[in-house]
């Protein structure tokens, strides 16, 4: 009951946020000084052609009118037609989204593994040189953003020790007719592990670049939270019962320490997804972000709007999931 109420209220709040995003992005892109129509016109087009094209894309009406028309379409699943690619926006976005989702998920998994391992190691060996070392590494990883990590990785693993490919999502010579855009999942399902390996080799560096700052945050937060938990009386009590230090950390402290980390990890994960925009560009990875930058460069208003809304939906969904997970894991809320 409580969970349901919580869910509904958060859903309502999310809807308001998304509407706000829609209004802002719509207004901002209308102020774009570059004229998208001019770019599309063939040489020697007449003023009548311009009027016709403007009418076609609805650009002849006032901004509020345009918004109402666009928003009405959005509610019916119609995000308009891309000006530069001349295809429905929804199809374009959904076509690129899987690549970005696979990348972001891979990065999240890496971040949790690296961050979790470093936090547990640091706490197990707290007060020693090992903890100091992990702290310094975390501090550095935290202050270097994904864009810089990407560049550093390109130099190290792309040029100095060329282990991985520095651009693209998959080697162009690999022929596999994918049914879906979820290449990684599909390659596994179809047992084409050579393709999986190729995809992973392409994904490794961009995913690591995205993962490192988040790993550092998870590492720091979880360590801090674990250390605080380890000082609590119930942990001390467990020690007096005869449990080993490792067992005390895993059995008594970890679960309670994860909760405060979880909320912040959610917010930081949305930052990670936001970071895919530039990291995809850096690695020429054919995802949503790469397309977004092209859309801005081409002044493709409907496509920009569609992509921003798509990101906003993902972000708010992540926050919603985190919020509900928090409630579900917290006995105080679960059994209130």
């Amino acid at each position, binding site marked *: 009951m409580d969970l349901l109420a919580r869910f509904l209220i958060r859903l309502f709040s999310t809807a308001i946020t998304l509407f706000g*995003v829609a209004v802002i992005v719509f207004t901002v892109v209308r*102020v774009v000084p570059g004229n998208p129509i001019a770019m599309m016109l063939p040489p020697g087009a007449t003023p009548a052609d311009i009027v016709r094209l403007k009418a076609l894309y609805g650009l002849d009406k006032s901004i509020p009118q345009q918004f109402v028309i666009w928003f009405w379409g959005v509610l019916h699943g119609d995000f308009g037609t891309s000006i530069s690619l001349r295809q429905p926006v929804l199809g374009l976005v959904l076509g690129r989204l899987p690549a970005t989702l696979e990348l972001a998920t891979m990065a999240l998994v890496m971040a949790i593994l690296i961050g979790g391992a470093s936090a547990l190691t640091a706490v197990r060996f707290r007060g020693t040189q090992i903890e100091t070392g992990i702290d310094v590494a975390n501090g550095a990883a935290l202050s270097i*953003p994904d864009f810089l990590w990407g560049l550093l990785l390109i130099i190290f693993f792309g040029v100095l020790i060329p282990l991985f490919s520095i651009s693209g999502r998959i080697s162009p010579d690999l022929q596999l007719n994918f049914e879906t855009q979820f290449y990684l999942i599909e390659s596994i399902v179809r047992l084409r592990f050579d393709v999986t390996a190729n995809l992973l080799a392409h994904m490794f560096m961009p995913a690591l670049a995205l993962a490192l700052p988040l790993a550092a945050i998870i590492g720091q937060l979880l360590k801090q939270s674990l250390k605080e938990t380890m000082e609590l009386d119930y942990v001390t009590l467990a020690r007096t019962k005869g449990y080993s230090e490792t067992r005390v950390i895993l059995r008594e402290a970890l679960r309670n320490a994860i909760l405060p980390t979880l909320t912040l990890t959610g917010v930081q994960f949305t930052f990670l997804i936001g970071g895919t925009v530039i990291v995809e560009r850096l690695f020429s990875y054919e995802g949503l*972000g790469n397309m977004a930058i092209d859309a801005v460069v081409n002044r493709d208003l409907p496509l*920009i709007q569609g992509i*921003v809304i798509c*990101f*906003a939906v993902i*972000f708010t969904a992540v926050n919603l999931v985190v919020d509900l997970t928090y409630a579900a894991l917290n006995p105080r809320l679960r059994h209130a």
Partner: protein
Amino acid sequence: MLDGRGSINRRVGARLWLSGGWLLIVCLASAFAPMIAPQDPLAQDLMSGQLPPFWVHGTEPGFWLGTDSLGRDVLSRIIWGGRIALQVALIAGTLTALVGSTLGLVAGFYRGWADRIISRLVDIWMAFPPVLFSILLVAVLGTGLRSIIIAIVVIDWTRFARVIRAEAMNQGAMDYVAAAQVAGFSRQRTMLTEILPNVLPTIVALLSLEMGIAIIVEAILSFVNLSISTDAPTWGGMIAEGRTTIYQAWWVLVFPLIALFLTVLSFSQFGEGLKDRFDPVLR
């Protein structure tokens, strides 16, 4: 907490001095760029394109860190690029801190409708992908230093607003705020003279961090060709060019990257170091 206090202090000290030292070098180099830079950063010479740095065979004297494809001196461009980076860092960082901290302080201390409005705005802002948003804004505003600064402030004020709001809320629950009320201080005065000094160390640390972030945003915008102007020497622009010639002339990418890396790292470490060093409560 009691043990290892000395070693922590030593570490804080080293961090502060190293990062502060690098930032000082960058500041001086930027201030005296016309005197220090060995070459004109814009001078092209296609005959001496892609010269390697000084220790590699085939170099020419005067081009210490080599040249790019158009024969422009990499070192000179890094020095001049530092000027732009620092301008962005100082102006955008300070403005962002002012706007974000003010809103955060008001929301966290006054609560009520001010908090509801500001928090809702933060929520909406958090639903935008920040990099895409900044690219979009600069595309809308047109390239140039002013646009970049505006874009950074518009996007990043939430970083301050969120943190300072939470801090102000924590501090607002302390009894010294009640004590100020019992003494008869107005709410506004309490916020400025009691709460603000207590959140100031956090603002300073965030400000330093934000300066590093501003430099990165500028670099990203240059990287996608949306920064100042195409031929102005910026670190991001150099990196973008270096990325395309990475197998032929690695130095075009590596040296500006090192400058960017050290500066961003220094800004964040400097802020943390300052906070640890000069906070009387922590000491």
